[in-house]
């Protein structure tokens, strides 16, 4: 008995957390077995097992793969562009007060505005193909990267810069030995936020105007009341987000070895 109690107390964290999720899934699954749903409602209702079946079916028919491929391309291209532009721009704004002052109004204004409002404009300009989605992903993801890089560069300890200079370091070595290590953690946190925004961009972009991609698949299914197909999409997006978030968090904790507490970001 005491052993059982010990077993529980040691793993209470996981047992309660995992148990709760499991309980929710079981409860969801058993709803149709417990209550008779009215006809209108049963149209919208599905269970985890049905979603799983649908997923399997779509996989076999090679349908999800094609949509997934399109969404993934948009995601990767947009995020890649965001990194390509966000990091250097953040670095420049952090090191030059003139650039900082000149770019600040745009960064503040665009960061406050939900970037998806540009979607109709981008569709108009770039059409229903992948590029309108790549662009919406890009403008969603670029700001967290830019702002976090900027913060990282700005928060460099002057003393450390002086220390390295006193040992004869040149501008590039100061960058390499002090500015970049100091910014790295900020950048990774920025990357985590950017991934979230990028996925949001893919989802909304494809809902709004696309013929291919998981979001387009979901929007079409919703209008045909194929609720389980919508849930397949939700589950895929969720899984991808979780995998990315957890991976980046791992990197974050690796990077924070030298720091007593992680940079807070919630």
């Amino acid at each position, binding site marked *: 008995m005491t052993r059982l109690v010990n077993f529980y107390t040691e793993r209470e964290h996981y047992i309660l957390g995992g148990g709760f999720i499991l309980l929710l899934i079981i409860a969801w699954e058993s709803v149709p077995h417990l209550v008779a749903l009215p006809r209108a409602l049963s149209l919208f209702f599905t269970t985890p097992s049905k979603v799983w079946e649908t997923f399997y079916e779509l996989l076999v028919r090679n349908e999800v793969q094609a949509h997934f491929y399109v969404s993934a391309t948009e995601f990767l291209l947009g995020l890649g562009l965001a990194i390509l532009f966000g990091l250097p721009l953040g670095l420049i704004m952090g090191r030059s*007060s003139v650039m900082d*002052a000149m*770019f600040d109004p745009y960064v503040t204004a665009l960061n*406050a505005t939900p970037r*998806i*409002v540009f979607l109709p404009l981008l*569709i108009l300009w770039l059409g229903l193909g992948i590029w309108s989605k790549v662009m919406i992903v890009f403008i969603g993801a670029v700001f967290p990267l830019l702002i976090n890089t900027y913060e990282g560069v700005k928060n460099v300890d002057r003393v450390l810069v002086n220390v390295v200079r006193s040992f004869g370091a040149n501008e590039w070595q100061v960058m390499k030995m002090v500015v970049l290590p100091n910014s790295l953690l900020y950048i990774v946190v920025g990357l985590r936020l950017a991934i979230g925004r990028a996925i949001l961009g893919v989802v*909304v972009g494809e809902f709004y105007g696309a013929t291919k991609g998981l979001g387009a698949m979901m929007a079409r299914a919703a209008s045909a009341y194929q609720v389980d197909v919508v849930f397949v999409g939700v589950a895929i997006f*969720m899984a991808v987000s979780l995998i990315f978030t957890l991976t980046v968090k791992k990197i974050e904790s690796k990077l924070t070895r030298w720091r007593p507490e992680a940079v807070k970001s919630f």
Partner: protein
Amino acid sequence: MGAKRIYQEYQRPILGLVSVAGLFLAWELVLTYLVPLNPFFFTKPSLIATAFQEQVLGGRLWHDLIISSRAFLWGFSCAIAVGIPVGVLMGWRRRAEYTLDPFLTALYASPLVALAPLIIVVFGVGLLAKSVLVFLLAVFPFIFNAFAGVRSTDRLLINVVKSFGGKEKDLYFKVILPSTLPYIVAGTRIAIGRGLVGIIVGEFVAASEGIGFAISRFGDTYQLPEMFAAIFFLMITAIVLTEGMRKLEAALAPWRVGQEAR
């Protein structure tokens, strides 16, 4: 000397103004003199200004903003009412944290807008679906920031208040609330951003009025000046809300300024 001094003093706003004014001026000039303007594809600041005047002063966009605000406020209020108690509970009772944390973290990390088509199927087009979407997106910053705020409460301060004979009530009002409040305000700022996304997505996907719908419809009908006017109108609203929150944060917790929580 005088001008130089003024410049040094106000370098940031001056440079910011110059850069924004420069951009708009260049935009206007290029489309007026260099490139022929294709009105179905592009527009210029002077046309946008006219459209802005018509749409905003004419009341059309105000009407849309009010429609959108209604759904926003419903969803946002529910997010506060649910989020803060859940967060405080998680911060205060370790078992509640253990139970809820993995589930909520997973949801927070997921793109919940993916549920939008489903929500619209279930709740129909209109106020309710939009409010639900806003709630779903905005509730998490409240939960996690209230949680972090309670957790960050200094045990020492609790002991200090206890040692002076403070009761449970005093602990809440003299220690926990003041140290949690800045976190909640910071959470509010994040929640505003997410809530705005909720509103816009809701109105993009299915709506017949509201600011998101207006932007979308102007796009469909190639009314570019009107679309830009609506985007700028929303932008101004968003900046006022977000920067207002930032000011409030600084006023409530001057000792925390600069500690970004995004």
